C-alpha cells in the first residue's frame, strides 16, 4: 500500500510538491491528507491509517504523544515559521506593529482564533509581549484557521491581520507584509513524527523531509527548515 | 336587471357557444346533462374562467368584452356564487364566513339572513362542526351577504343526501321569494327545476337548446329525453278558485266550468300555481262511474294518441279547456275503448295523486306565495 502522510492544511502546497518529488525519486506512491491539525490528531488517535504526521504546532503532537499514538523518539521539529502583520489592498495607510492599535480605530484586526489555532496563539503572545493585547482584544475578528483569517484581510473585511508568513507570501492581494519579530513569541515549530506501526518505507520519507531537496521546497514557500539529523531518530 | 351573454369557449372536446339574453328576475334554471357545460357557463359569468370570445353584460355593466379587452376580475363583478360543495373557509367561524364578503358589517342584515336560513344558532361554530345541509345554508348566506347584483347557484343540493336535501329545499324556496335579485340555478334534477325555477334554459353539448317558461319547455318534446316512459307528465299553470277547509283541499280553475281538486294549497284564492300531473295518473272513461273515490272527472277531447309496438302503453294527448293533459293507458284499453282523435271522453284525475311535491312556485312577479310544507 502507498505511504500516507497527514499534514496540517497550511502546508498543503509545499507538502504536495515534496510528495511528488519523493514519488519520482523512490517510485512509491504517497497519499497526502490535509486538514486542521486538530482533526488529523484526533483521527490518528482514533486509529487513522497514517504513517507520518506533520502538525502545525507542538500541542497536538504532544496530545498524540500523551496518547502513545506516535513513536516518541521520531517526534522532531521539522520547520519553523514566522508571523507577519499584513495589510489589505483596501487599507490605505501603511501599518506597523507599534502603531497598530491607534491605526485600527473602529476596524478589526483579523486573527486566527487564539483559543485553539496555533497561529492565533503565537499572535496573541506577540501582541501581549508588545503590550498591545489589552487595547486590541475587543477589536479582533477570529478566523477558524489561518486561511480563513487571510481571507478576511484579502476581502478587505478587516484592514489588517496577523497570519503566518508562509500564507501571506502566497497571497497576491495584500499591499504590505511585515514580519513580526520572532522574539515576541515562542518559536513556531512544525514537528513531525512517525506513527506506531508505519510501513517500513515511512522512515525513508521521514528522512526525505529533512533532505536538502525538501528544504529547498520548504524555503521556497517561506518555511525555515530546521537542520536536524534525522538519522538520530531510530 | 338583464343579463346578456355571448360566449365561446373550447372545453376539451366540447365547444361552448352560448347566446343568451335573460331579462328576468326570479330563478332561471340552467338544465342539462352532466358535462353539458352548465358549470362552465356560470364560471364564465362569475369571471372564474375566461371566454375565448364574446361579451357579458350584467345590467348595463360590461364585465367581459373580448373585442374591447375588458375582463373584470371576479371580485369586481358583484356576483354571488354558491358552489356545489359549500367551500366554506375552515378557519373562520360561521359568522366569519358570513361576514367575509361584507363591506358594512351591520348586525341587522346578518341577523335577517341568518334567520331566513335558520342558522342563527350556528354563528360561533366552525364549518367542520356543521352537517352538510347546514354548511350549504351558510354558503348561501355568505353569498347573499356579499350584496350581489345576481346570484349563481351550482347544484347547491347535489352533494347532499336525500334527507339533507329535503331540509334545504324550503330555505331556497323562501329565498327566491324574499330576495329580489336574479338567480341562476344549475341543476339536473327535475324536481328542483319544477319547484324552484321560473324560467329555464336547456343546455346540451355546450349550446342553448331552449330558453323560456318552465311550463312551455317542460311540455315540449325537448324534455322527452328527461322523462322516462312511466314518468311522462305535463305542467299546468292555473289559478286557485276556492278552498275547502273541511277536507283540506283546493280547487284550481282549469277553464270556465272546469275544476281540479287538489290537496290543500296554502295560498290565497286567485293566486296562480304550477302543478305537475303525471300521465300515468289520468285514466279515461266514457261515462263517469257513479260512486267513485276519484274527485276529478273532467270532460276532455282526444287530441292525439301514440303508441309503440313493444310497450304496453299508449300515450293520449287531451284537451281540457285551454289546457293540454296527457294520459298513459294500456294499448289494450285504448283498443277496447276504441279511442280516436277528436272524441269526447272523461279524464279521471285522482286528487290525491297530485302530490304536494308537484305544486310549485308561483309565477307572478308579485311573488305572492309559496307552498308551505
Amino acid at each position: 500500500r502507498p505511504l500516507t502522510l497527514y499534514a496540517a492544511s497550511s502546508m498543503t502546497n509545499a507538502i504536495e510538491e515534496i510528495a511528488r518529488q519523493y514519488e519520482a525519486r523512490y517510485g512509491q506512491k504517497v497519499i497526502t491528507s490535509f486538514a486542521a491539525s486538530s482533526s488529523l490528531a484526533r483521527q490518528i488517535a482514533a486509529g487513522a491509517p497514517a504513517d507520518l504526521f506533520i502538525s502545525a504546532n507542538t500541542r497536538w503532537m504532544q496530545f498524540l504523544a500523551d496518547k502513545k499514538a506516535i513513536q516518541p523518539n521520531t517526534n522532531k521539529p521539522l520547520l519553523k515559521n514566522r508571523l507577519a502583520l499584513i495589510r489589505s489592498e483596501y487599507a490605505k495607510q501603511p501599518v506597523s506593529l507599534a502603531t497598530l492599535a491607534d491605526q485600527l480605530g473602529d476596524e478589526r484586526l483579523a486573527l486566527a482564533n487564539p483559543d485553539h489555532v496555533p497561529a492565533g496563539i503565537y499572535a496573541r503572545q506577540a501582541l501581549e509581549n508588545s503590550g498591545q493585547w489589552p487595547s486590541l482584544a475587543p477589536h479582533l475578528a477570529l478566523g477558524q484557521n489561518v486561511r480563513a483569517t487571510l481571507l478576511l484581510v484579502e476581502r478587505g473585511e478587516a484592514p489588517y491581520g496577523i497570519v503566518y508568513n508562509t500564507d501571506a507570501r502566497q497571497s497576491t492581494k495584500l499591499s504590505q507584509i511585515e514580519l513580526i519579530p520572532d522574539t515576541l513569541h515562542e518559536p513556531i515549530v512544525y514537528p513531525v513524527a512517525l506513527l506506531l506501526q508505519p510501513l517500513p518505507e515511512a522512515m525513508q520519507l521521514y528522512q526525505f523531509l529533512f533532505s536538502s531537496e525538501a528544504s529547498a521546497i520548504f524555503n521556497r514557500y517561506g518555511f525555515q527548515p530546521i537542520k536536524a539529523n534525522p538519522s538520530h531518530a531510530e | 336587471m338583464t343579463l346578456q351573454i355571448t360566449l365561446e369557449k373550447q372545453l376539451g372536446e366540447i365547444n361552448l357557444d352560448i347566446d343568451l339574453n335573460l331579462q328576468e328576475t326570479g330563478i332561471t334554471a340552467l338544465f342539462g346533462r352532466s358535462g353539458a357545460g352548465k358549470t362552465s357557463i356560470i364560471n364564465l359569468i362569475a369571471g372564474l374562467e375566461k371566454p375565448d370570445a364574446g361579451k357579458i353584460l350584467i345590467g348595463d355593466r360590461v364585465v367581459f368584452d373580448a373585442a374591447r379587452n375588458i375582463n373584470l376580475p371576479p371580485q369586481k363583478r358583484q356576483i354571488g356564487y354558491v358552489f356545489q360543495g359549500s367551500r366554506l373557509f375552515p378557519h373562520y367561524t360561521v359568522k366569519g364566513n358570513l361576514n367575509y364578503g361584507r363591506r358594512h358589517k351591520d348586525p341587522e342584515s346578518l341577523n335577517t339572513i341568518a334567520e331566513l336560513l335558520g342558522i342563527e344558532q350556528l354563528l360561533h361554530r366552525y364549518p367542520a362542526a356543521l352537517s352538510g345541509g347546514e354548511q350549504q345554508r351558510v354558503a348561501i348566506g355568505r353569498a347573499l351577504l356579499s350584496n350581489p347584483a345576481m346570484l349563481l347557484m351550482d347544484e347547491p343540493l347535489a352533494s347532499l343526501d336525500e334527507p339533507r336535501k329535503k331540509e334545504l329545499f324550503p330555505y331556497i324556496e323562501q329565498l327566491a321569494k324574499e330576495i329580489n335579485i336574479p338567480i341562476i340555478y344549475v341543476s339536473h334534477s327535475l324536481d328542483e327545476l319544477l319547484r324552484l325555477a321560473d324560467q329555464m334554459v336547456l343546455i346540451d353539448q355546450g349550446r342553448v337548446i331552449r330558453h323560456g317558461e318552465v311550463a312551455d319547455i317542460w311540455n315540449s318534446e325537448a324534455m322527452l329525453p328527461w322523462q322516462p316512459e312511466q314518468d311522462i307528465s305535463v305542467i299546468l299553470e292555473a289559478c286557485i278558485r276556492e278552498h275547502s277547509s273541511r277536507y283540506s283541499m283546493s280547487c284550481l280553475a282549469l277553464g270556465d266550468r272546469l275544476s281540479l281538486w287538489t290537496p290543500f294549497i296554502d295560498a290565497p284564492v286567485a293566486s296562480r300555481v304550477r302543478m305537475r300531473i303525471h300521465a300515468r295518473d289520468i285514466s279515461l272513461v266514457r261515462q263517469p262511474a257513479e260512486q267513485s273515490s276519484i274527485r276529478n272527472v273532467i270532460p276532455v277531447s282526444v287530441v292525439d294518441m301514440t303508441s309503440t309496438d313493444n310497450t304496453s302503453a299508449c300515450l293520449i294527448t287531451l284537451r281540457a279547456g285551454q289546457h293540454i293533459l296527457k294520459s298513459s293507458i294500456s294499448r289494450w284499453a285504448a283498443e277496447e275503448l276504441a279511442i280516436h282523435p277528436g272524441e269526447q271522453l272523461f279524464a279521471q284525475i285522482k286528487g290525491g295523486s297530485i302530490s304536494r311535491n308537484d305544486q310549485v312556485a308561483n309565477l307572478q312577479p308579485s311573488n305572492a306565495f309559496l307552498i308551505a310544507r
Partner: protein
Amino acid sequence: MLSEYEISALLLSLKVSGSAVLFSLPLAILVAWVLARYHFPGKALLDSLIHLPLVLPPVVIGYLLLISMGRQGVIGSRLYEWFGVSFSFSWQGAALAAAIVAFPLMVRAIRLSLQAVDIKLEQAARTLGASPLKVFFTITLPLTVPGLLAGTILAFARSLGEFGATITFVSNIPGETRTLPLAMFSFIETPGAEAEAARLCLISIVVALAALLISEGLTRMAQKRLAL
C-alpha cells in the same frame, strides 16, 4: 448552571436563528408561492437555484457571501454606500448566512403546504369580492399555517446548527457572531476540552428539541382548528 459564556452563546444563537427565520419567511413564502402556483420558462432552474445552498458546502457559501456581500463585495459595498448597512462581523451577517443555508428547507415545506391549499376556496373568496391580496392574506396564508410552522422550525433547526458559512463570512467574535456551533468548534479544537464541547452540544440539542416539540404542538393545534 450555565456559565456566562454558554448563556451568551445560547442567546446569540437564538437571536441569530430567530432573525434568520423571521426575515427570510416573507421571501420564502413569496418564492414558495411562485413555485407552487405559476408555470413559467425557467421554473425548474429557479427551483434548482433555491436548492443550491443545500448542495454547496457551507464554507463555500460563506466564501461566496464574503465575495458578494462583504464590505468590498459587489452587493455588500453598494449596500454600505447607499444604506449604511453592513453585515461585516455582525450578528446580522451570521443571520444572513443562516438564512441562506436554511432557505431551501423553508421554501420546500411552505411550497408543499401551499400546493395543498384548495384553490376552490380562493375562487370562492374572489366571488365574495376579495382582491387577490386579501385572498392571499385571509385564505391562502392561514390555511398554510401547518406548512409555515414546519418550514419555520426546520429552518430554525438548520440555522441553529450553521457553522461553516458563518465563521467564513463573519468570523468568530464573542458576543457578536460566536454562536453555539462556533463555541463548540473552539472546544473541539482544543485538546482536553471535550467536556465543555459536550455541554454546548447538549444545550443545542435541548433548544432544538424544545423548538421541535413546540412546533409539533402548534401544528397539531392548527390542524385541529382547521379540522384537516
